[in-house]
């Protein structure tokens, strides 16, 4: 992975997905990641302000800086596929500088073999969530 556009600590996860036997196995893996989201947003924090529009199911994103001033993404979605993608995104961005996060591309999702989650007309809304994370990172990096 020379031209990698994601933090190197994601490499093993990308690899793990690429090694899946088929798409069903990939989705299974994604469901597992959804369950072990490193920084889930608890239901009682889901509100209108942090809701991502344009998703068919409910999805919420809250970005902030941790005690070290590094990026912290907390996310909650009722669809596991979306939550799984957000979990991996959290693994990617948590602990990075906001500036770095603001430059992130969703290429790792494609590389993981989940490209169909990235078409803008798909109602799953991951792309909308991703865009929100990047734009919040931009704002946080300017503080």
């Amino acid at each position, binding site marked *: 992975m020379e031209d990698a556009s994601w933090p190197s600590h994601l490499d093993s996860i990308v690899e793990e997905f690429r090694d899946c036997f088929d*798409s069903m196995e990939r989705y299974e893996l994604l*469901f597992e990641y959804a369950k072990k989201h490193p920084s889930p947003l608890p239901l009682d924090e889901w509100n209108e302000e942090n809701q991502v529009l344009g998703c*068919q*199911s409910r999805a919420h994103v809250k970005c902030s800086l941790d005690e070290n001033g590094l990026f912290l993404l907390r996310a909650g979605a009722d*669809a*596991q596929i*979306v939550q799984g993608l957000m979990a991996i995104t959290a693994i990617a961005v948590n602990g990075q500088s906001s500036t770095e996060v603001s430059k992130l591309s969703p290429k790792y999702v494609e590389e993981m073999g989940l490209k*169909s989650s990235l078409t803008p007309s798909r*109602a799953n809304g991951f792309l909308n969530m991703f865009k929100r994370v990047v734009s919040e990172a931009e704002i946080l990096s300017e503080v």
Partner: protein
Amino acid sequence: MALDIKAIRSDFPILSRILPNGKQLVYFDNAATSQKPQCVIDAMTKYYEQYNSNAHRANHTLADEATTALENAREKISQFFGTTPENLIYTSGATEAINLVSYGWARYNLKEGDVIVLTEMEHHADIVPWQELSKEKGIEVRYVPINNESFTLDMDAFEIAIEDASLVCVTHTSNVLGIRNPIEQIIQMSKEVGAHVLLDCAQGAPHEKINFNNLGADFIAISAHKMAGPTGIGCLLATSERISEMGPFMTGGSMIKTVTTDGSTYQNGHSMFETGTPRIAEAIGWGAAVEWLSQFEMKDIHNHVHQIASWTGREMNKIPGIKIYGDPDNKNSSGAISFLHETIQSQDLAFLLDEGGFAVRTGHHCAQPLMDALGVPSTNRASFWIYNTQEEAESFISHLKFVCERFV
């Protein structure tokens, strides 16, 4: 008579589509839109390649051919629905047809305090136009509830609701539940209390022969694209009596008799409601679609769909965690099966089915009040039509089982 499904399938080029993930398409999203046979596509291509021209006031050969084709289509389509060209008004679809009733009839004939009766299982197209009219004119809108066990209309409540109603708007068949309403009874009861009836046949028309003149409804709304026809066209069927009570809706060319700077006079009858350049290719395509459908008995299509749907419904009920909303085993059902898994979220399930090549619809299906009544935010929905097969249903069930086992 049994249909020759293999021959029928060969009329639909899309059915041999291999999806990007290598899977063969299994199209179970027919309640959203049907696929089109080659002859429908060809009829439109032929129009554009050989005689495309604006219709009416035809003084050259192409315009004559286009106008003749347009009028022949109207003739064929109105005949298919058991009525005459004079009672058919082309619209862009069922939605515009219902808006036409709202703007072109109700606006001129209903007044403050009048009552419109809807049901909880209406599509938004048969709800929002009435809510708007209600706001504008102070008309009361009532919703007949459904029974949450049988998923059928509460006919006792219906009887009470219509008592002093002016207009009753009911879907022939629910796009979510597949339930066919007792429309004959609904029409009769409404007529008895002096109410007019609008039937939303967007889902009914692909599954049952709609005979407008026999049914006795005042208005019927239909979309072409759900019954093998193209996008962008549909119609309102209306009785001559109701048409004579209607006033202009959209205005412009064609619908006028005379225009001066002092004012205009309008055509009589259905012509008053069709303005601008007609949907020529679309009408010709729809004409070809009803011609194609006329090869078959709608009853045979219904039986075929029913067999697949009832088998699929029974098999789905055996899968732990799956709950069906509707009654696909009911012999009147359109075969649309709405369902949910108790733990796999509907959108996740849609993705996992799509990975298998299965196209099912997921969401509120433009029927949020029904979702509210069912107490769910959305459902997955598989819906079948003439070209679907038992084999497709079997592979669907086996994929669904697999998914439900693996993703709980």
